[in-house]
């Protein structure tokens, strides 16, 4: 077994498929970027709604979050692969089956799913800011929205950066679910290559490529965590000159 893992021929053969891997990697990165944008839009919207008083909107947001958090992402992908095209075909009375591009399936698959998680990150971030902060702002005459923008969210941001980055990392890895619906992403091409050759090397190559982008993100989480814990006074010292003049 060890010799088959070190076998130069198997590495050589697996690396012959590298152009495929690169193409898949491009797809993975594009889906990650666009999916992240969708997830952030949904997350911010639902996260803010969850902290508001409107009961109906709140209920919609709770249902959405619970639904997407408590069903497997694979089923959600299959829904976009098979279900949504069938619905579109019905709605518009098409004669031929409708097909969503893999990119579209991918960005909505990870976007809607991680949007639910990001909404929770944002909600808990907002709720972690003490109520007195909002009261102080309101008592000064700031509106609810101004209080959110100037007082609550800036404090929230620092707290939520680490979990938000973790979500980005998870989103990136979850794009590999796309392979289950012939997603033309990195995992799909790795599966294809390993399926053809039977050489495990293909997965190691794919793992290295995923690692190359995930590891820096994981490091970023650490930096943000340290930053969130750090005293802002320390950060401030470096650019003291401006304030100093005023005293």
């Amino acid at each position, binding site marked *: *077994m*060890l*010799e*088959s*893992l070190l076998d130069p*021929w*198997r590495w050589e*053969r697996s690396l012959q498929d590298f152009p495929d891997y690169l193409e898949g990697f491009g797809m993975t990165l594009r889906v990650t970027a666009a999916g992240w944008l969708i997830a952030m839009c949904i997350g911010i919207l639902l996260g803010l709604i969850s902290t508001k008083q409107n009961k109906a909107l709140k209920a919609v947001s709770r249902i959405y979050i619970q639904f997407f958090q408590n069903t497997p992402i*694979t089923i959600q992908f299959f829904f976009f*692969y*098979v279900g949504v*095209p*069938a619905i579109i*075909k019905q709605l518009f009375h098409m004669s*031929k*089956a*409708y*097909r969503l591009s893999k990119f579209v399936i991918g960005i909505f698959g990870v976007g809607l799913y991680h949007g639910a998680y990001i909404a929770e990150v944002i909600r808990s971030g907002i709720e972690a800011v003490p109520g007195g902060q909002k009261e102080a702002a309101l008592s000064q005459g700031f509106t609810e929205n101004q209080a959110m923008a100037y007082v609550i969210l800036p404090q929230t941001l620092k707290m939520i950066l680490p979990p938000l980055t973790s979500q980005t990392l998870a989103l990136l890895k979850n794009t590999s679910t796309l392979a*289950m619906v*012939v997603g*033309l992403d990195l995992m*799909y091409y790795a*599966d*294809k290559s*390993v*399926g*053809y*050759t*039977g*050489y*495990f090397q293909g*997965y*190691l190559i794919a793992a290295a490529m995923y690692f190359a982008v995930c590891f820096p993100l994981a490091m970023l989480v650490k930096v943000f965590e340290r930053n969130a814990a750090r005293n802002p006074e320390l950060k401030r010292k470096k650019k003291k000159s401006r304030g100093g003049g005023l005293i």
Partner: protein
Amino acid sequence: MKKRFLAVMTMAVMALAALTGCGDSDGASSAASGDSSAQRTVEDIKAEGVLKVGAKSDTINIGLINTATGEYEGYDVDVAYEMAAKIFGCTYEEAVANHLVEFTSVTAKTRGGLLDNGELDCVIASFTVTDERKKSWNFTQQYRLEPVTFLVNKEAGVQTLADMDGFVIGVGQGTTTAELIEEYKEAKGLDVNYEIQDFQYISDGVAALKTGQIDAYSVDRTGLFAYMDDTTMLTEDAFGVQEIGIALKLGNDELTQFMDNALTELKESGRLDELKAKWGILTDEEVRAME
């Protein structure tokens, strides 16, 4: 999903085992497999009392787990029982009755690794023999010839590859089908453009065909035949005849030679054609005639 997960896990565990130098801890086979490069002989298998075979579990008439009995069924499965019968010197019926074959479900991605680390004695699971694969595993002569064809929706109204311009064609992951289609197209001088998409399981591919997510699914004829229904049909194409052989660990020449001889005997005695008839598989002559 679960199968995929298992497959990936198996590979991961195998890689770990290899890296840590951890061998097979099972005492029964330790005599032969203390060193992973050791080859299992016919005598080893006899001593252990069971032949370990990697088989398909998802392909009707070839290798399928009967959900009612939990037993493997199909042509490839019967070939495995015949091999066991030769090794243990008994009849096919006795081999079945005494469970002389221990089946493991394999996919294109797991079959190679399971041979490499000695988990399996051989793989009898629609494994097409190619020159490239011969570098990594031993193969016997073919026990089944398979032409490739297409399964399409009847309403698409296509008869051959020539009608498939702009089609999305699904193929089995790990199969040589994509290359065979390309060769077939070149040979016939067809001017068609198509896109290939790989599916891990034939059932996924057929489901995608029926929901219109792909336009055609292509794999060996026997595999497709079993999935044909009122809404789908096979095209007239029959090409890229593949030789399906028994795969063994690279360098295990003794067992390979033994099985190769056994296949020769089965062919000469007409037993193999008998089994083909039982499972609705085309004989070598029928395949050659189609081409």
